[in-house]
């Protein structure tokens, strides 16, 4: 009886050791949005010359970066707001590819959010009026997950729609399998 009792106490102690709740799964549908991404008018410091230290990360990065629900919402918005039109499914087309790791205007989540909010030359529209901050940051989280920057397992493996790449079975033998950007 005693050894069984000791074993159960051990198990209880281990169970009680509640680790910090894993925030990767946190649903945070906040009532109030936190302040503006970019003060109106000021252009974001996207390029940091050599020695100057990059500005501190926005407070919301922790909430959105690598958060499964934000990435999920961003994925739906990416389809609904027709980002696919220019960027296709991340492979690029009229717009630059988002799956690689070259970021003209900065690859951090707040920089991507700023790019989406204020728009960029050569055709990137400003979404500040059309999308709320919440949605912009969800999109930014999804765009970062496209290039696998945060850990892979927060992003979902596919959408419920048509799969992005052309089926391998249509490409005759020998040709390497590549994303449809190269196909067009």
């Amino acid at each position, binding site marked *: 009886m005693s050894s069984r009792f000791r074993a159960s106490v051990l198990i209880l102690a281990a169970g009680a050791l509640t680790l910090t709740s894993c925030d990767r799964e946190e649903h945070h549908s906040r009532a109030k949005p936190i302040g503006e991404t970019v003060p109106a008018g000021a252009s974001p410091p996207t390029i940091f010359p050599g020695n100057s230290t990059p500005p501190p990360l926005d407070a919301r990065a922790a909430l959105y970066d690598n958060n499964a629900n934000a990435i999920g919402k961003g994925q739906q918005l990416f389809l609904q707001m027709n980002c696919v039109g220019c960027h296709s499914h991340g492979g690029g087309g009229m717009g630059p590819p988002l799956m690689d790791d070259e970021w003209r205007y900065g690859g951090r989540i707040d920089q991507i959010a700023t790019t989406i909010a204020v728009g960029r030359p050569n055709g990137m529209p400003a979404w500040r009026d059309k999308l709320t901050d919440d949605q912009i940051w969800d999109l930014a989280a999804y765009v970062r997950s496209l290039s696998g920057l945060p850990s892979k397992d927060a992003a979902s493996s*596919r959408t419920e729609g048509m*799969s992005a*790449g052309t*089926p*391998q*079975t*249509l490409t005759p033998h020998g040709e390497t*399998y590549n994303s449809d950007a190269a196909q067009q």
Partner: protein
Amino acid sequence: MILEPRFTDDLSDLPTFKFGPSSLTWWGVLGFMVIEGAGFGLAFAAYFFLMGHEQGWPPEGRLPPDLLAGTLFLVIILLSEIPNTVIKRAAKAGDVPTIRLLLPLMVAVGVVLLIIRGFEFNSLNCRWTDDAYASIIWALLLLHASHILTDWLDTVVLCALMYTPVAYEPRRWGDVDENSMYWRYVWMLWIPIYLMIYWVPRL
């Protein structure tokens, strides 16, 4: 007040092992074969359920899997039944030298089959992410590959065991007998899977 025992008869000369349904491990192996059979049966049902939706199977424009690797696999696994039957009879007869001779052959055949299976995965002409057709074909092939792998690992361990003095114990002959029975089950399952992967898309 436990009841006093009334001794009826003495069983001390009962054997400690018999082949076939008298042995416990025979029933255990049968149980796991039925479990895997139920699993494979439902995988077949899923295959035909998904196929039922389509006008064409595979879906329009997809190339069916190439025949070479799969057919080669079928031929070799059917041929492997010959040494398998010899081992089974030797196990029943307790002929340990023959078992020690042929088990390494079965291990070698297993290696060859696993290599061919690698080529088969390559000749499916589809990636599992393409569509449900590709997913279910890859699933069937992967399930059977794991089936081959587990039985091959079992044969390797058994082969090592038969090279120890314990090989002369009747229980171990029972293990060899049941392993051969399981190998028969493996290639019997391959026949419907082979037809579903390679020939049904060509109908």
